[in-house]
């Protein structure tokens, strides 16, 4: 029986970062707070 090769989809997928990486970055951004004291800046990660 003839095979329908035309229905095969291309396996190549665009290169993109993982969803978990993006989620981590957004969570990191929410958690990070920078406190400034005179010329100094302190990073704080809030849970």
């Amino acid at each position, binding site marked *: 029986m003839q095979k329908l090769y035309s229905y095969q989809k291309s396996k190549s997928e*665009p*290169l*993109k*970062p*993982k969803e978990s*990486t*993006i989620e*981590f*970055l*957004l969570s*990191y*951004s*929410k958690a*990070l*707070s*920078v406190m*400034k004291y005179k010329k100094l*800046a302190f*990073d704080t990660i809030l849970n």
Partner: protein
Amino acid sequence: MKKIETTTDATLVRQYLDGSEDALSKLINRHQQRIYNFIFSKVFDRDITEDIFQDTFIKVIRTLKRGKYNEEGKFLPWVMRISHNLVIDYFRKNSRMPKFEGSEDFNIFSVLGDPALNAEKQIIKDQVETDVKKLIDELPEDQKEVLYMRLYKDMSFKEIAEQTNVSINTALGRMRYAIINLRKMVEKNNIVLTN
């Protein structure tokens, strides 16, 4: 018709600095593919690309939150430069250039090989050769002579016979006894002659 994105990067950066986390999400979504492809084109490894991508945006977030970003309107080139620097750091840390690893179907190292012996194998080879020479020296003179001519001078048995003034059969016999005697000495002294 597709809606054209009108919010500029500079506006989103300003919104983010004003506390809008959504603006950061938009910035990442807008540029993720380009930055990810840029990193991947340098390192050719998905996991390393993922790490460098993450580190890039951690640096972006920290710089923005510290209020040190002052390149308004040039957000993407700035992020690209950060990722470029991190790629350089990665190669510096690993002190190597991008390498071709091949895929599961094809491995370049099955085609390419290093024919030279490594230091250990060279030492073993030298040791084996020294042992063989010592053993040959223990052979009777007539057998030693034939063996040297055959193996080290690559002479034919006809040439050996002519040079030693014996028949070819005698030369063959001496060679045979030389090898038998060498085997006996190897077995007797438990010498390992393998590389």
